[in-house]
């Protein structure tokens, strides 16, 4: 079932790792419109941090470029696209494997995609070598609906 887009935002910044905190905090602030739990918000921040780090470290490989974030909210879901115009990924399946990293000497753990996949509901990666990479992540925010329901229940109990 496709729900209508209720809000969207775009963010562009230079590929400096100092911007990782800026990116995840901005997306989290935008996501907070859906009234997520603290844990859901932490999951979103972590996944955004991983995707942005990938753009900076791997996509642009320390060269300067632009990282783009496009986020949309539906009634109960956030969809976040994070893209770079960097070098691209040759084999996405291998890149996604836990512990796989092209930069072990820099203490990279190779857990970026694994974390994105377990903290978000769905992660899609599109990449063309030499042109760039786009990661699309979706997460349903369950909190709102459940809270409203439990509030109703609470009301019913107190009425009795």
């Amino acid at each position, binding site marked *: 079932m496709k729900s209508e887009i209720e809000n969207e935002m775009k963010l562009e910044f230079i590929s400096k*790792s*100092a911007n*990782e*905190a800026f990116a*995840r905090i901005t997306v989290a602030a935008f996501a907070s419109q859906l009234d997520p739990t603290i*844990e859901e918000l*932490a*999951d979103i*921040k*972590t996944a955004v*941090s*991983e995707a942005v*780090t990938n753009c*900076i*470290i791997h996509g642009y490989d320390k060269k300067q470029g632009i990282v783009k974030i496009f986020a949309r909210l539906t009634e109960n879901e956030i969809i976040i696209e994070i893209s770079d115009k960097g070098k691209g990924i040759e084999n996405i399946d291998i890149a996604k494997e*836990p512990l796989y990293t092209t930069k072990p000497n*820099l*203490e*990279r*753990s190779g*857990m*970026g995609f*694994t*974390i994105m996949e*377990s903290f978000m509901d769905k992660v899609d990666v599109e990449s063309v070598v030499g042109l760039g990479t786009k990661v699309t992540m979706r997460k349903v925010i369950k909190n709102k609906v459940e809270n409203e329901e439990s509030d109703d229940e609470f009301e019913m109990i107190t009425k009795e």
Partner: protein
Amino acid sequence: MESKFYEEDKLLIFKITDEIDDFSVQKIRRKADYEIERYMPKKVIFDFNSVTFMDSAGIGLIIGRYKFVKMLGGTVELANLTSSIRKIFEMSGILRLIPITNLEVS
């Protein structure tokens, strides 16, 4: 990041006070390695009580320090992990090598 060395136990405690990501981790790593080399501790504890955010950069940070301390004959333990930090460490499998210890929140 604050650090404290207890001479009698050869114990070095790092209290990390920054968010841990690819940017901040470079500074934390430099300071930790400097202190480890200076004190040659038997045990190093990383206290996460004041860490409000960590991504996979934290995994590399801890594995790297674990290897370094082990090479010098010491051990590493982790303390005061929040649920999301614990989740990230669990996913990486490093909790099989590095124990979680109790450390009073200071």
